[in-house]
């Protein structure tokens, strides 16, 4: 209670007894530690896969290749590790800030087990190629529905807790939590809209440029509202607690909150600069991304200045040290982000390793470090003891920091090297490095440095795991401790309270304002672009994929090709020289989902159609090094054994037709026969070139059909 409350009316108020539900926090803490280790192990594995292709296996085990493990890594890091960390921190701090037990023990437990089951479901689907093919939103539709359901459970539990609170004022950390819950729900639902083909296959309802905009509106705000706002809430609670002093400026924290929530939602289009996204949307995205620098640094300064006067403790207390480092990396990556969003910088940085470098400065530097600080704080509080070993925590800190610095700097070096090589044009107007592979071979040493940096980070995490385990082991659990606080009723509002004091109590109004703040930006950006569908559709020469190409495209999506290959050519001299005509919006109108990608570990594929003979692709997928010396791509031998699955084809075409893809009645009726006929033609060519005659019904043929079609309707390379 604030002092004014108790002075005014303490005599008339009702004192209530309650206890915190700390068990659920402990569960989330344990889940955070376990999934964090899994996410980092996966990250380290795929880092080595990029350095040395054989780590992918020799082409016999589909589910351990980069294209399938990378989505598992990102989902595990974001939703399993950070997700559980957020829930632990939110449930711990919310009960204390609102002086109440969580609304419902049962809902807390449904939330916990539901979320863990979703993570298990992700681990059981993504490696097996069940994916929607959109970054950080790969999970198939039944899991998407489960996520929405569990998120609603979380929301009911959280807002219920607000309802039964005994503290009138809502501390700023809780504001960040509210914005998180509301926005993640909106983003997840709208980006995941899809039509199912069967139980584990669906197509995005959006296509091409619309799908790209919705996806990156979601994708960037996954960063904003899953990796930033909830962690800022944690920062505003746990940093003051650990430093034992109030936040430097509470007013700044409020301006920080509203600015961040209002501005972040617009930033998505900076992932699509120089693409066929309408120019005005790119401009809005860039301007708001650059503006983000101000509130982000406002928050960083607020966090760091909270530590004024206790800097000596930062040296010795692992909790404060990890938190101070986290806030510093937050400052670094929120400076780098706006920089990368400036179009001319983005022209150099996009598709390069600068982007994963930037992302990991945020996720390792900010999310992991802050979580580590919060975990040490929580474990010592919840098991009522001291840290087992400050020395181990110190070792962890240095390993993580050195590993991260190795990661970031190697990626910068790789990015500048490769980007300069991509765009090098000699005096005769030709590319200096026309073979993409030359630019890859050059940066492989950097991939090794990154892999070792990642290994350091992974080891640091294992050290923390051990340290936390030993801490908990020597401590003890005391649950059900009785606490007292005054009930929040009419008597707790001062008689002459000003209107804003009342507003402060109205969580509903506040939630609606937050929702409005994110909806305004979303609607101004999304609605015109989605409406423009009707105009984009006009080019007659762009035709739907043939039935066989649809099947080939599904293989492309299944194997996660988009994690290394882009499919959109920017209007720049070197890209036009290397890949052909710049991509246009109307070329993608049948792409459910879009496959533009965000990283060129390999070359762009938008106009790969017709560039090489069928047999080249055949040999390339069997072993990329047969045709591209020095390639780091995995082998895809199973495509030569698995038969094309024609069973779901009629349903797939039907779903596409529902979206308005203009398939003729004949195609819808005889899809399978048409696909088989096309497969036969391709097979005849392959067999003539020396392929075995039984290749006809194998997946490789469908994939070749798709690859040879790419970009040919409008911009065939002459």
């Amino acid at each position, binding site marked *: *209670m*604030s*002092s*004014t409350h108790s002075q005014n009316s303490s005599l008339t108020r009702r004192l209530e007894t309650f206890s915190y539900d700390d068990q659920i926090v402990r569960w989330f803490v344990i889940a955070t530690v376990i999934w964090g280790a899994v996410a980092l192990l996966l990250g380290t594995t795929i880092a080595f896969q990029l350095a040395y292709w054989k780590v992918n296996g020799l082409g016999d085990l589909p589910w351990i290749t980069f294209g399938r493990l990378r989505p598992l890594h990102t989902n595990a890091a974001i939703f399993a590790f950070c997700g559980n960390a957020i829930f632990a921190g939110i449930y711990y*701090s919310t009960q*204390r*800030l609102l*002086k109440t037990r969580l609304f419902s023990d049962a809902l807390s437990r449904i939330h916990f087990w539901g979320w863990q089951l979703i993570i298990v479901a992700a681990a059981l689907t993504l490696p097996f190629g069940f994916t929607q093919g959109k970054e950080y939103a790969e999970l198939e539709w039944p899991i998407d529905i489960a996520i929405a359901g569990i998120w609603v459970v979380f929301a009911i539990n959280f807002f219920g807790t607000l309802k039964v609170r005994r*503290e009138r*004022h809502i*501390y*700023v*950390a809780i504001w960040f939590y509210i914005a998180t819950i509301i926005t993640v729900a909106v983003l997840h639902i709208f980006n995941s809209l899809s039509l199912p083909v069967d139980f584990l296959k669906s197509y995005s309802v959006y296509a091409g440029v619309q799908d790209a905009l919705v996806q990156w509106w979601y994708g960037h705000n996954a960063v904003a509202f899953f990796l930033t706002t909830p962690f800022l809430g944690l920062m505003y*609670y746990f940093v*003051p*607690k650990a430093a*034992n002093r*109030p*936040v430097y400026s*509470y*007013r700044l924290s*409020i*301006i920080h909150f*509203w*600015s961040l929530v*209002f*501005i972040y939602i*617009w930033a998505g289009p900076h992932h699509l600069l120089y693409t066929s996204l*309408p*120019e*005005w*949307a790119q*401009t*809005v995205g860039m*301007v*708001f991304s650059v*503006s983000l620098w101000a509130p982000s640094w406002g928050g960083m300064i607020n966090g760091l200045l909270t530590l004024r006067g206790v800097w000596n403790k930062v040296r010795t207390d692992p909790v404060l040290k990890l938190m101070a480092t986290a806030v510093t990396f937050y400052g670094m990556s929120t400076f780098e982000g706006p920089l990368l969003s400036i179009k001319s910088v983005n022209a150099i940085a996009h598709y390069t390793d600068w982007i994963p470098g930037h992302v990991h400065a945020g996720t390792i530097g900010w999310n992991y470090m802050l979580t580590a600080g919060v975990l040490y704080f929580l474990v010592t509080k919840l098991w009522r003891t001291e840290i087992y070993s400050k020395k181990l925590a110190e070792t962890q800190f240095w390993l993580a920091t050195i590993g991260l610095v190795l990661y970031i700097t190697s990626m910068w070096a790789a990015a500048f090297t490769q980007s300069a090589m991509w765009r090098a044009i000699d005096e005769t107007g030709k590319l200096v490095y026309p073979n993409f592979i030359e630019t890859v071979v050059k940066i492989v040493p950097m991939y090794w440095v990154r892999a070792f940096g990642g290994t350091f980070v992974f080891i640091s995490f294992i050290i923390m795991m051990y340290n936390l385990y030993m801490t908990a082991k020597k401590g003890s659990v005391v649950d059900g*401790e*009785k*606490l*007292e*606080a005054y009930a929040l009723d009419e008597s707790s509002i001062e008689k002459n309270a*000003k209107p*804003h*004091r009342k507003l402060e109590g109205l969580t509903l109004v506040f939630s609606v304002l937050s929702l409005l*703040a994110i909806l*305004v*930006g979303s609607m*101004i950006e999304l609605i*015109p*672009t989605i409406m*423009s569908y009707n*105009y*984009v559709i*006009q080019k007659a020469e762009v035709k739907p994929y043939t039935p066989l190409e649809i099947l080939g495209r599904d293989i492309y999506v299944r194997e996660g090709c988009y994690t290394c290959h882009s499919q959109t050519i920017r209007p720049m001299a070197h890209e036009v020289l290397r890949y052909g005509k710049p991509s*246009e*919006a*109307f070329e993608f109108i049948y792409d459910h989902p879009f496959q533009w990608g965000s990283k060129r570990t390999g070359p762009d594929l938008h106009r790969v159609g017709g560039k090489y003979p069928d047999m080249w692709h055949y040999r390339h997928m069997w072993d990329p090094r047969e045709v591209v010396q020095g390639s780091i791509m995995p082998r895809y031998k199973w495509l030569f054994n698995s038969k094309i699955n024609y069973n779901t084809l009629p349903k797939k075409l039907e779903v596409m037709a529902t979206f308005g893809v203009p398939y003729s009645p004949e195609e819808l009726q005889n899809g399978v026969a048409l696909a088989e006929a096309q497969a036969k033609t391709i097979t005849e060519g392959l067999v003539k070139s020396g392929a075995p005659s039984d290749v006809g019904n194998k997946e490789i043929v469908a994939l070749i059909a798709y690859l040879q079609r790419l970009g040919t309707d409008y911009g065939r390379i002459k």
Partner: protein
Amino acid sequence: MKSEVLSRFDMPSLPLIALILFVVVFIGYTWWTLKPSRKSYFEDASKLPFEDDKSKN
């Protein structure tokens, strides 16, 4: 030709509207936050994380 123009779907006014909207909203909540009358109230609020220790028996 019409479709060519519309396919760009150029809306230069939208970024401007967005910026004006933001400036208005920003001035609004900054004023709301920085009003001198709210000072003591925010000071109380910033102490909330430390109340759980006090409310224990």
